[in-house]
């Protein structure tokens, strides 16, 4: 199976090394403690791990890098599984986070005796020649489960933020929304909950269900997904189930628009948990009677304007503009006021960073049109300024075809505005 003689030699050498490692004499207890201390040192040095990262155990084994097994040590810590080997001047290093591991499998065959297969989203890794493969595997499983229970699936790093600002690719969007919003954990800790309340809520009619029924065909009506019974029924079930779960909110217009967009990217059950995250954690009290949460945030927005855009503050107050714009901006998270493929980008940031994104984008919009707004004599004029701006926002990176919905029909011809005013959403946030 080896292509060159060198590879064969390498293999033999590794084999001998591993046999030597396996015949190490059994250790006394204090030797073991000493051993853990030195290996912790090594672990930190090899993998550049911080002091807080606690090493749990380490095992001798072979890691299959391509065709060649590299003899070395597997280090299992609270958050990571690592491997290090240094033989004949060649270093092999592997760092995996438990949270990234999607599958652990044990195997034992001629080719891979006492082996463990570790899969992540990107690759499969094979470890073999594990002396205590059962013990090792059990510990790996335990650590991986602990990582899942902590709900740690992703780190908020500067890089993550930059990637989110650039826009999440369509095929990852739903998954990222689930992770960022915490909906993923809610769903995992409440198995069958959604199916149950769909069953319970079915057949009960109420004010909420009447209102939902009327709005089903008024949620992204231009999108093919909501021009057939499949999409409409899913939307009906999610909204009805939510009204059942939370009678304090029931149903409020704007929830239909948000949910219809969610359904384009995630499954029905996931959409339900995302909606729950939006209504109960991200935008608390936004959708209940009198939309009081949104009105409070409108007040907060006013304060932010006087702090960051003082020159505009009095003007906007005279025009009475805020009360007219902010509800649609806030309650639909810009989905009903901006071209669709731009608004989902804002939604990316919103799930990542929460309600502050709405304030940031709102302030940015006002700032970008400050001169024009200052020149306005009445509310209608100011509305026209902002509408025109909203229509001109576009997203040249988006692969999502722009869905014509009521917010941007033929107000501004698309090509004209695209050429004239290049405004990308990412600049707003």
């Amino acid at each position, binding site marked *: 199976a080896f292509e060159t003689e060198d590879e064969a030699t390498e293999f033999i050498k590794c084999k001998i090394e591993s046999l030597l490692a396996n015949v190490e004499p059994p250790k006394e207890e204090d030797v073991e403690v000493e051993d853990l201390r030195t290996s912790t040192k090594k672990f930190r040095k090899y993998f550049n791990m911080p002091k807080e990262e606690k090493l749990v155990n380490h095992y001798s084994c072979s890691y299959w890098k391509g065709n060649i097994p590299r003899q070395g040590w597997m280090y299992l810590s609270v958050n990571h599984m690592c491997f290090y080997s240094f033989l004949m001047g060649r270093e092999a290093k592997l760092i995996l986070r438990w949270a990234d591991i999607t599958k652990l499998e044990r195997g034992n065959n001629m080719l891979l005796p006492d082996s463990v297969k570790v899969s992540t989203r990107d690759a499969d890794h094979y470890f073999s020649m594990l002396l205590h493969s059962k013990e090792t595997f059990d510990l790996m499983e335990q650590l991986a489960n602990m990582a899942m229970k902590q709900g740690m699936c992703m780190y908020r790093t500067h890089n993550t933020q930059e990637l989110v600002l650039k826009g999440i690719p369509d095929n990852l969007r739903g998954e990222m929304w689930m992770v960022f919003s915490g909906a993923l954990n809610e769903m995992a800790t409440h198995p069958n909950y959604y199916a149950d309340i769909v069953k319970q809520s079915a057949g009960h009619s109420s004010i909420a269900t009447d209102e939902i029924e*009327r709005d089903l065909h008024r949620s992204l009506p231009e999108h093919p997904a909501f021009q057939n019974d499949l999409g409409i029924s899913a939307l009906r079930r999610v909204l009805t189930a939510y009204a059942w779960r939370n009678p304090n909110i029931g149903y409020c217009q704007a929830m239909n628009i948000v949910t219809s967009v969610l359904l384009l990217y995630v499954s029905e059950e996931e959409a339900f948990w995302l909606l729950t995250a939006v209504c109960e954690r991200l935008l608390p009290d936004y959708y209940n*009677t009198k*939309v009081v949460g949104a009105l409070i945030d409108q007040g907060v927005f006013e304060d932010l304007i006087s702090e960051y855009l003082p020159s505009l503050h009095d003007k906007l107050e005279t025009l009475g503009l805020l009360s*007219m714009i902010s509800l649609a901006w806030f309650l639909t998270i810009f989905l*009903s006021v901006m071209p669709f493929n731009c608004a989902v980008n804002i939604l990316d940031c919103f799930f990542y960073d929460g309600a502050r994104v709405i304030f940031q984008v709102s302030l940015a919009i006002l700032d970008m049109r400050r001169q024009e707004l200052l020149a306005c004599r009445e509310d209608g004029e100011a509305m026209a300024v902002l509408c025109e701006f909203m229509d001109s926002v576009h997203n040249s990176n988006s692969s999502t075809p722009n869905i014509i919905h009521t917010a941007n029909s033929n*107000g501004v011809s698309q090509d004209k505005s695209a050429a004239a005013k290049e405004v990308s959403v990412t600049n707003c946030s």
Partner: protein
Amino acid sequence: MSQSGKRKADLKVIILGDYAVGKTSLICRYIDGTFRKQDSTVGAAFFFKPWGPYNIAVWDTAGDERYSGLSHFYCRSAGAAILAFDLNCPKTFESLWARFGSILDAANEDCLKVVVGTKSDEVDEKTRDVSSEEGRRLALELNPDLDEAYIEKAGAPYFETSALDNKNVTEMFEYIFQRCLPLSADQHRRYKGKTSTIDLLEQSSDGGGRKKCC
């Protein structure tokens, strides 16, 4: 197009009514000349329309009762209010009194109130609940200042419309504009001639653009 941001409106028209009676469709039929399925309106939306030498601002509002606290803002200095109800849903007719009567206090004192039944295409004359007479009566009650001679000549501010079939929509808006911003016979000829021939073109190039923002 760039002009639209700099235009001051000569007349502010607002439209009120329960959710899903077809307020946005009514406006879009008039301004765009088309019927299209609409998203539910959250907050308010806004449209500009030239009428002769004048600019008309049409404010669309959300019908959901949860937003009704905000309608006062939209009504501010409105010269005309369209009170829309679904001809097939008597509850929406009752709402006009119950919900919107008091809201209109913020409008101009001489604000013209036009009662408009929608979805006349769905009406079955045998089973209809709100009669034309009731609609007309409400319209007259809401506008005590309209003198009889005017009503004799121009009709009561009551219309039964269909945005789908384009019935009575233009007539209704023209009634409002003619009452609030009367054009002389000469002006009417000049501008009418102009708008009716290039109306469609005008929407996409200049003026008449529908603007919906919030």
